């Protein structure tokens, strides 16, 4: 039971590039069963840009699931952006899950924007000033919600969709000093506890596409500048002899 997952992040749309991405989505139904968008949909996070995103991804022949990124929070209009996307038929995950039926196969997608903090042994901890505690607590609470959402999913395949990275590997090429703002190992730990077929993220424009969590879950950084193509396609259930 194979499922083909198309994924892209960091499209950073705005009025100035309206319509340019849409034409790249022609024929997506021949290549993939679902499209996942890994945050940073906009540049400034304004409702106007949210409308451009909604128009760019509405009425596609495959289901579309998205999470927000840090840029989509810049204008404090994230709730309005989420509402605009949902009105356009796009499923937006906010630390919860959704199930996509695809022929006989069922795909569970869990996720949200995620957050930073750094990676095991070299990370921030919930200690000291309230601002520092709040920073790390935010990531920990997200990780706990994802863990729960994954646990309650009973689907053939499970994919985690995030903006921030769970591992360092896919950040290679980014300055080491900013790693704590690019992701957190807490996200990987939560996913490894339940297992998943794939972890999709964006945010690290200068990173690389491929990595793996300590527990062996494949990680793919699909930030548009990393992919240099409209979207990547990952075929889950590869051991199935039926072609994808």
């Amino acid at each position, binding site marked *: 039971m194979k499922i*083909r997952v*198309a994924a892209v992040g960091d*499209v*950073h749309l705005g009025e*100035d*590039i309206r319509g*340019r*991405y849409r034409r*790249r989505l022609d024929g*997506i139904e021949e*290549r*993939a069963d679902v499209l996942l968008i890994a945050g940073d949909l906009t*540049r*400034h996070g304004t409702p106007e840009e949210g409308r451009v995103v909604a128009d760019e991804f509405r009425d596609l022949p495959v289901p579309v699931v998205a999470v927000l990124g840090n*840029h989509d929070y*810049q204008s404090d209009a994230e709730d309005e952006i989420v509402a605009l996307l949902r009105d356009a038929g796009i499923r937006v995950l906010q630390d919860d899950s959704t199930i996509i039926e695809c022929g006989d196969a069922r795909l569970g997608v869990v996720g949200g924007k995620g957050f930073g903090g750094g990676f095991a042994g070299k990370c921030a901890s919930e200690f000291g000033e309230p601002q520092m505690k709040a920073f790390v607590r935010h990531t920990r609470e997200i990780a706990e919600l994802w863990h729960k959402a994954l646990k309650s999913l009973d689907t053939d395949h499970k994919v985690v969709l995030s903006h921030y990275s769970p591992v360092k590997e896919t950040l290679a090429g980014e300055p080491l000093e900013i790693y704590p703002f690019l992701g957190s190992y807490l996200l990987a730990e939560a996913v490894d506890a339940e297992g998943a*077929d*794939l972890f999709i993220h964006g945010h690290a*424009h*200068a990173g690389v596409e491929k990595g793996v969590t300590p527990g062996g879950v*494949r990680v793919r950084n699909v930030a*548009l*500048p990393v992919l*240099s*193509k*409209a*979207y*990547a*396609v*990952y*075929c*889950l259930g*590869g051991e199935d002899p039926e072609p*994808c």
Partner: protein
Amino acid sequence: MSHEAPHHVVSHYDAPHYVAARVQRALAADERTYELGIRVDIRGDQLFLRGQVESVERRLLVATVAGETAPGLKVHNEVTVVEVRDPGEEETL
């Protein structure tokens, strides 16, 4: 002194290290750019910008904001526009 200037206007006598940091901050915070991933390097009176943006217009704005923040430096805009090719081959996991 200009009160309209969106950022600190600096002279090129400032330590290059801080000027580069200021330009980088301006690129992230100026509403014309909001670009977080641009590398800024200063060598003498030359300012180099590197990274990727989504359109030609955004590429030009990056140089504009950098030039305003560091007047007196010659801006070399080595920023490129993200290339978006067709989806290509799938990966089987």
